[in-house]
């Protein structure tokens, strides 16, 4: 109960902080002559921001013939699903105007393009859950236990954040190779688990929570694991949600490491599959529609996640950046 109240209080405090503002208008100041047009550049920029998304969506529904038009059509003359799935497609014969849709490619891979979705989904969820679990456990010990050498351990963890991750890229690859993990989910998941930033962030967050809450539970005879699950985890919820979203989006979009450890198509995640798709039909205008369809499908999940969790998301960035 107590924990819940503290959480509410922290949340309210955060919201208050957000409402206070450097956004101040002097009601007595007269506005300039051109202030009517001051917003025009912003709207022009908005068009530039949206254009790539608009293009992804519309051109994924265009026929090959329409894709080749110069100048291109802004709105598809005819909306067709062929870039995703063309019902008339027959692998044994070539016909004009009939396309090989996205889900009709990658025929050697089980489930075709859907396989990459399954891969990405499995990898992302597993990493997100495990990395937060072990990260929050470690953060709890570092922040709230009296523990010899914990300062030294924490320093090493924070210090590692200064080293660009590419430094460990090659030995990481060799290690994965030695373990025989190349082209397996192990190589995706295990090396991605220890994330220093999550520990750092959660320790920061925990240190703003009064020790008395935990002390009180200890005096009442609660064991450490009980304290972690019943008190610490609920208190950490806002921070954990923010970290969860960051981790999930980061892993979903991860490219360089998956590129190195995958050797056969069926182990690719979505970004690697996109690159494969691009390289398979490099300059061919016919595949552009298919590529756009794939790009759209790959971007949708993270965008939806962002829309669903916007509040937590923005607060998470603010918390991690301004401390």
């Amino acid at each position: 109960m107590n924990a819940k109240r503290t959480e509410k209080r922290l949340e309210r405090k955060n919201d208050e902080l957000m409402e206070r503002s450097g956004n101040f208008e002097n009601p007595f100041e007269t506005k300039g002559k051109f202030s009517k047009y001051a917003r025009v550049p912003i709207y022009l920029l908005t068009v530039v921001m949206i254009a790539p998304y608009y293009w992804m969506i519309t051109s994924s529904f265009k026929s090959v013939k329409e894709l080749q038009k110069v100048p291109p059509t802004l709105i598809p003359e005819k909306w067709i699903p062929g870039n995703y799935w063309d019902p008339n497609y027959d692998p044994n014969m070539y016909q004009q105007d009939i396309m090989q849709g996205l889900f009709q490619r990658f025929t050697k891979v089980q489930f075709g393009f859907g396989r990459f979705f399954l891969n990405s989904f499995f990898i992302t969820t597993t990493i997100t859950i495990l990395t937060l679990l072990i990260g929050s456990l470690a953060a709890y010990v570092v922040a709230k236990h009296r523990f010899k050498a914990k300062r030294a351990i924490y320093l090493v963890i924070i210090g590692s954040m200064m080293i660009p991750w590419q430094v460990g890229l090659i030995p990481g690859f060799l290690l994965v190779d030695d373990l025989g993990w190349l082209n397996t989910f192990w190589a995706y998941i295990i090396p991605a688990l220890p994330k220093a930033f999550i520990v750092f962030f959660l320790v920061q967050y925990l240190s703003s929570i009064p020790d008395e809450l935990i002390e009180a539970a200890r005096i009442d005879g609660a064991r450490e694991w009980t304290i972690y699950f019943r008190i610490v985890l609920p208190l950490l919820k806002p921070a954990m949600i923010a970290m969860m979203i960051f981790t999930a989006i980061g892993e979903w979009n991860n490219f360089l490491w998956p590129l190195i450890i995958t050797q056969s198509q069926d182990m690719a995640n979505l970004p690697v599959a996109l690159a494969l798709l691009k390289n398979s039909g490099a300059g061919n205008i016919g595949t552009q529609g298919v590529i756009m369809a794939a790009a759209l499908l790959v971007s949708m999940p993270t965008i939806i996640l962002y829309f669903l969790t916007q509040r937590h998301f923005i607060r998470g960035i603010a918390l991690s950046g301004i401390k």
Partner: protein
Amino acid sequence: MAIKQIAPELSYTPTKKKGFYKFSDSGIASYLMLAPFVLLFLVWAVYPVLSSLRLSFMRYNAICDEALSPCGSVGFGNYTYLILQDSRFHKALFNTSLYVIGAVTLGLLASLSLSLALQADTRANRVLRVIFFLPSVTSGIAVVLVWGWVFRGDDIGLLNSLLSTFGVAPVEWLATPSLAIPILIFMSIWGGAGFGMVLFLAGLNAIPAMYYEAAVIDGANRRDRFRYITLPLLKPVMVYVVITGTIGAFQIFEGVYLLFPTSVGSIGGLKDMALMIVPYLYDMGFNRFRLGYASAVAWILFAIIFTISLINIRVTKSLEDLR
């Protein structure tokens, strides 16, 4: 004495700590909670970094055959060759520096102006903020593929077909050396300005409105308020945006990998016009399997990022002391 008689359990007598409690007040639970993270961290973060340091002083390839491709220590050989003789690496360094300077300064300006333009909490601004932030959650590969189409060299390329309506001949955007870096900078700003904007908005909202009210009473106009209240109070955010932006920009990979391939399975585009540090590392490590050499590249990357972060912090510190 009195207390001891009334309530003997309250009196404090130091006891000798035993077993796990010698190191932690919470006993074995501390170890169990810390162990998963620390073990994984040692294997997948600490070991790779140390190992890559060792590799960087070696000639090393995955085969290590005495006759064909021997491995062994070369002392500082990798570093001296990289710094003194490797003209491709020099090109990569030069390109990356140009890119970082452009992307960070223009990105800083863009995100600061965006946050100022969109800080009022109106419905329209909330929508615009979401739109400007979208690229931060979109798969980098997906976005790069759309840009690939925009900057296509033939007349089907979107920019070219737009230009052709004004009677301009098609431009080979991705095959003109002088355009490579500007295009990558543009992509970086498009993708990153929204993130900086969110950080700046959080910073702006943390400025108490009363500062502005006091300033207005003292007769400060709009520009003074910005110069003497907003800017100084935003400085911590600015430092954060610059440092994280610089670190991120040095690690550019995806755009170069997908938009500037070269025919021989190498990276960097025509005449290495878009070759950068991390793509070069990838090229050395995973196209040519010169793993020791690539590790040395990684450590130079670390040295650069580390120095720049230090300089950044020092400069802002000393500027503060001046005041």
